């Protein structure tokens, strides 16, 4: 392998073991041999074990009937459906809890950050206590506190707590009155969708014109007005009743109707989003504080009103610093949603765990779970990185 004759020139009489090129090739081969060797060794072991235990290594089982129930599936599911369907249920649950969690954590985290920066000492201290509390306890402990302690103290169905809304709270979950589409509701939704699309297009066109020509094009009022017109039109077309409030009612055993949040979902959602909100608050605070004070003073000096100081001077600069750590917080939240297993919320991981125990198809199921999370992570960071690139400094 180390045929050193042609590599050593006549002038420089370097021994082959000190020739950097040869050392590099040698290191390359050595590292390749070690890594590939370990992999091959592991795979040989694996096939031996697979033979001994009669394990299937294909994904064909996904078509078979799952045979286990999932409580409160967000999409149609019953045990006679396939394993693939069970995974889909888990995936929808994961996406629901992490999507809603990301939205809530961002809003709440930003509010906490603003409270932390407030000139009011008490408000700022309250925000500090919130942040320090959530940052220094493990997420699993927070999850248990919410699920076992807070939701554990909630009364039985018969003594449900009633909140105005109407919202009912009992051991089976939270019941919220929820608007449901009536028969003519479809027309309203279509009109609303068209309206949103049209107003966005108008907004973009008019704002571009404003940027190019410098003339006032009133892009905000124009697009908002269009939106309202479309909504009103849809409302009238649908006969004035596009929605009907679906109010939960007590049927003797349980509440029916309305939107039901299970305690598992509520506990998972609350602990995930509050935990992440504390981290997001620190990210946002850091970003806002990093904006040069002179920038703000200069913006005020040229007479910008406070709202424009915030939206045109502070936010664009703060966002550049905020977005990259924010992406990693979002990724963390999505990955942390796998803790749902500990309280029996049926997310992708919990469903996968059941399949492993049931069918002993550990390796393909694990590959599936890891692929799901990997693609979720890659997708999230891909989308957010595009946004990030757009708002970074453009250097020419």
């Amino acid at each position: 392998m180390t045929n050193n004759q042609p590599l050593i020139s006549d002038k420089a009489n370097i021994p082959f073991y000190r020739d950097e090129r040869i050392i590099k090739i040698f290191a390359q081969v050595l590292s390749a041999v070690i890594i590939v060797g370990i992999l091959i060794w592991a795979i040989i072991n694996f096939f031996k074990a697979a033979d001994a235990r009669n394990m299937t290594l294909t994904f064909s089982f996904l078509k078979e009937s799952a045979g286990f129930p999932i409580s409160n599936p967000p999409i149609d599911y019953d045990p006679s459906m396939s394993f693939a369907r069970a995974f889909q249920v888990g995936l929808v649950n994961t996406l629901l809890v992490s999507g809603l969690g990301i939205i809530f954590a961002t809003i709440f985290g930003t509010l906490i950050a603003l409270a932390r920066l407030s000139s009011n000492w008490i408000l700022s201290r309250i925000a500090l206590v919130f942040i320090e509390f959530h940052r220094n306890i493990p997420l699993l402990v927070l999850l248990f506190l919410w699920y076992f302690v807070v939701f554990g103290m909630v009364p039985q169905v018969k003594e449900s707590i009633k909140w105005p809304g109407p919202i009912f709270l009992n051991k089976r979950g939270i019941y919220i009155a929820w608007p449901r589409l009536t028969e003519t509701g479809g027309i309203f939704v279509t009109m609303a969708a068209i309206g949103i699309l049209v107003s966005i297009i108008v907004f973009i066109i008019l704002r571009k014109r404003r940027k190019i020509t410098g003339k006032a094009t009133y892009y905000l009022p124009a697009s908002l007005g269009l939106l309202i017109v479309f909504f009103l039109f849809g409302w009238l077309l649908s006969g004035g009743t596009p929605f009907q409030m679906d109010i939960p009612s007590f049927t003797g055993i349980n509440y029916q109707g309305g939107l039901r949040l299970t305690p598992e979902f509520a506990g998972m959602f609350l602990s995930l989003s509050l935990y992440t909100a504390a981290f997001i608050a620190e990210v946002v605070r850091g970003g806002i504080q990093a904006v040069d004070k002179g920038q703000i003073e200069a913006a005020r000096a040229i007479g910008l009103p406070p709202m424009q100081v915030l939206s045109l001077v502070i936010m664009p600069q703060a966002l550049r610093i905020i977005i990259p750590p924010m992406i990693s917080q979002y990724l963390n939240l999505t990955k942390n949603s796998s803790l749902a297993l500990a309280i029996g919320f049926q997310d992708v991981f919990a469903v996968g765990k059941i399949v492993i125990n049931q069918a002993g198809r550990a390796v393909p199921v694990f590959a599936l779970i890891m692929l799901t999370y990997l693609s979720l992570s890659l997708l999230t960071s891909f989308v957010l990185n595009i946004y990030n690139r757009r708002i970074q400094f453009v250097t020419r």
Partner: protein
Amino acid sequence: MINTEIEQEMIKPPLPPGPLKWVKENLFSSIFNSVMTVALIPIVFYLLFSVVSWALFSADWRAVTQFPLLYTVGQYPRDQIWRVGVILSSIFLFLGISWGRWGGLLRSISLAAGLVCVVTALLPVQHPQLDQGMRLFLGSNTVMILIGYFIGRIKAVKASVIVVGWLLIPICAVVLLAGIENSELIPNVPTTLWGGLLVTFLLAAGGILLSFPLGVALAFGRRSDLPVLSGFSTIFIEVIRGVPLVTILFMFSIILALFLPVESRIDRLVRALMAVTVFSAAYSAENVRGGLQSVPLGQIEAAKALGMSNLKTTVFIVLPQALRAVLPAIAGQFISLFKDTTLVVIIGINDFLGIGRSIINSDPEFVQLRTEVYIFIALIYWIFSYLMSLASRRLETAMGISDNL
């Protein structure tokens, strides 16, 4: 004489604001602020009052106070518990030595630890697990800290010796805790009996000590110009960072066995430690890589021009600057590793949180007391991770990294 004259002519810096002025500036600076202050004060007082009155009068702390040993060491055989005591004492001894050598935050930690020991030893309560021997042991730990302090003051004790000692403690601790087979003095104790804070600290300390070198190696691997090495490191880091820790824990507890020879058996706790280590190493690697990128190329060129070898350049020029630059991120990673050790509960290891859960489930009476147990657990985790973040902030200030504080 001249000095005082100059002093009189100098413009003095403004005095710190008096209490009244402070209140006016921070609580009532505008109408909106005043309204908020008036609205918030009663809410804060109400919350504080209800929490304190609950904790002191209506909470039933039996499920916490009855089992101090379970919470600290789990089911570790009670007649072998002196082994944990020996480890604890040696940790206190080295804490004292470090205090004598470096002072600073270590002083506060040593004093606090000594105070906790003395107060616990002198608690005027009857408790079956707090007998004469235990009280004596706790009292002697305070003496250990003091002895350590005076050893640390001796100039002959070198810093490197203390660091090596700190690194040796975990290794000795594991050997001592596990015991030696067929030994009269220290028989084997299976890890299924280990539990409580002991396991939490073992996982955290082991994870930190093992994952950091692995992380540094991965960071260098990723930056290496050997395609095989950098490709492998990159895939390894990105895959681990892309999946949740629970997945990795299950991977090591279920799947790993399939890829090893059939006859090999790795202990459950070791597998958990491996999972935590690998997970944390991937994140450390990215932190370290950030630090490596921040070292100016001129530094490396200068080192090479001085005739330093690659190894020497890396160890003495690149790494110190890189690690210093990312110290806050590394410290944050260690804190989250400490918090993440709780996830081993999911694969059935009785760490501190797991012990709390099994105590709750052991008695229907205790199910009603779960609020107290979970709040106690949260409080203990909070104290330790807050201490860790405090230590990291002090270290940053001492090293001149952070500009705040």
